[in-house]
């Protein structure tokens, strides 16, 4: 009956309650949507990083990642790669020769990372082949084809079929160069990546560097689901001896932290919204108990305990907060759900975002755990907001309250 009384009390002053409810609804809706938006952005960044740049697991000679020197290759890597390809949950394995080198066009040059890949294997691991904006992925050029990023192409002022020269040090530290022709130009959502990563065929780069047959610097592995990354990593580790087997989280820890950190930021953001709402709710409830001074006095007089009156105010405030909160959560979730399937186009900020590695087309991503957390936070806000007005209400003197005309 106390809940019934509290609920009906909310609607006594319909306009005032609706104003507070609207404020809570809008605040929570904005909080839920912003969180889903940021999470969608982060998820996309991580997904892009895994599917375009990192893959789930990488294997290197333990010194290669530190020095990036050509001589720290993995001999017989092709045998290992074939073996890994048979493991459960593995969707693709690719071998890469990696050399830091110089690429030059007729006009200018740039320092880049050259990756010698087997295109068919690479397609199973990364999605560069699907991000071609000009030309084709290692097609159309028979001899020494090269695939470069759009940003680099602009920098070098080259187009498809343009000639570029790659200069590098071979295994004997001799400076060597090879002429390549642009077969395709790709564009990812990360312009920094596009500017510094160049793909050539494995055989062409092996020939240029004199690397032994079957050797490479990096084996990149894609698994069917990120949840299986660790188990596959553990299985690979058992067979690779001294080689370094790392998951994407270990290779790029900042990327795995970004989601966690962003989650924390979003909770702080929602807390700030709730804090602002808290004072609005306190103000409303103070007005409520002031208006009902006489009524509270009557309740005390007829024998309603102060604990029950305290509880009644708490329930009323929590119901008020929860009604606005739940409406806000539902609206925020519905809007976020819509944008899960429809892009939010941020192309007006595209340049800046892409320099940071973020796509300018964002889909939201709702985290059910966050929805539950926000609901709990709203309930707590209601309780905290109610405490001061409720304490004030139970201090009323019934005899004095009943004298009010």
């Amino acid at each position, binding site marked *: 009956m106390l809940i019934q009384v509290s609920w009906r009390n909310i609607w006594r002053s319909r306009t005032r309650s609706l104003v507070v409810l609207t404020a809570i609804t809008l605040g929570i809706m904005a909080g839920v949507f912003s969180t889903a938006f940021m999470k969608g952005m982060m998820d996309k960044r991580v997904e892009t990083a895994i599917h375009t740049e990192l893959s789930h697991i990488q294997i290197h000679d333990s010194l290669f990642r530190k020095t990036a020197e050509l001589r720290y290759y993995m001999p017989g890597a092709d045998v290992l790669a074939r073996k890994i390809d048979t493991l459960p949950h593995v969707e693709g394995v690719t071998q890469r020769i990696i050399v830091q080198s110089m690429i030059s066009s007729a006009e200018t040059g740039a320092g880049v990372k050259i990756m010698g890949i087997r295109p068919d294997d690479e397609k199973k691991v990364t999605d560069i082949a699907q991000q071609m904006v000009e030309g084709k992925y290692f097609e159309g050029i028979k001899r020494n084809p090269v695939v470069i990023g759009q940003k680099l192409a602009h920098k070098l002022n080259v187009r498809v079929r343009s000639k570029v020269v790659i200069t590098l040090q071979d295994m004997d530290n001799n400076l060597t160069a090879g002429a390549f022709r642009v077969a395709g130009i790709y564009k990812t959502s990360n312009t920094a990546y596009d500017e510094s990563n160049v793909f050539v065929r494995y055989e062409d780069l092996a020939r240029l560097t004199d690397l032994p047959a079957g050797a490479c610097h990096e084996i990149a592995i894609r698994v069917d689901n990120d949840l299986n990354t660790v188990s596959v990593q553990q299985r690979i580790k058992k067979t690779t001896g001294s080689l370094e087997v790392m998951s994407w989280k270990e290779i790029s820890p900042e990327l795995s932290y970004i989601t966690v950190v962003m989650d924390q930021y979003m909770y702080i953001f929602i807390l700030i919204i709730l804090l602002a709402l808290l004072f609005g709710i306190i103000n409303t409830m103070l007005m409520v108990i002031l208006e009902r001074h006489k009524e509270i006095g009557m309740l005390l*007089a007829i024998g309603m305990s102060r604990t029950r009156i305290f509880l009644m105010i708490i329930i009323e405030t929590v119901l008020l907060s929860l009604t606005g909160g739940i409406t806000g959560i539902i609206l925020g979730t519905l809007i976020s759900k819509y944008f899960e399937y429809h892009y939010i186009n941020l192309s007006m900020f595209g340049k800046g975002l892409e320099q940071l590695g973020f796509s300018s087309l964002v889909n939201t991503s709702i985290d059910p755990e966050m929805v539950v957390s926000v609901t709990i936070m709203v309930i707590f806000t209601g309780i905290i907001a109610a405490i001061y007005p409720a304490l004030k209400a139970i201090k009323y003197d019934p*005899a004095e309250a009943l004298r009010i005309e």
Partner: protein
Amino acid sequence: MNIIEIKDLVKIYDSTEIEVTAVNHINLNFEKGEFSAVVGPSGSGKTTFLNLLGGLDRPTAGHIMIDGIDLWSLKSRQITDFRLHNIGFVFQSYNLLPVLTAKENVEFIMHLQGWPKAEREKRARELLKAVGLGDRINSRPNKLSGGQQQRVAVARALASKPKFILADEPTANLDSHSTENLLDIMEKLNREEGITFIFSTHDARVVKKAHRVITLEDGKVLSDEKK
């Protein structure tokens, strides 16, 4: 048999500038089944006297014994609980909960006492029927006249099965017809069910119906007449 014994009751309002003695050494007893009116001009101490008797205001000195229990020796929480189970209140301005219907208003006090839902619903219906509002049980106070609201308040006061009912100027806001109607109902409840009523009033119609009239002046008992 006395259900209320008042011994040397004093209430002094002590503001910083003026000290007002609202109740001045009152000694009175009330028996079960009395239909008494406390009368006197404004400021004579009627409301203060009733507030002390109802455990709403703490006396400066003296004792109020209700069924042998010294009311003001109880702790604050116990007094609230004592009021809930032993004293019924009818206020001048009805003081019903506007968000509840007539039946729910009557039920509310039984809910506080912990009655099961079915029983309190049954009793609420019976009581509202007894005060002539059997057909208005689902009306909210704003849909009832002043007289009807006060009858709901009487039903509410009776609902908790109190030892006595304190009514502070219950007819002050009512027209003559409603006053007559309310008094008839209260008199009938007193006569047939032995409910003890103590009113404060300066309404001649109430005084006329009362079986005992206690007149206060300046906080003192001026006269105590039984009819």
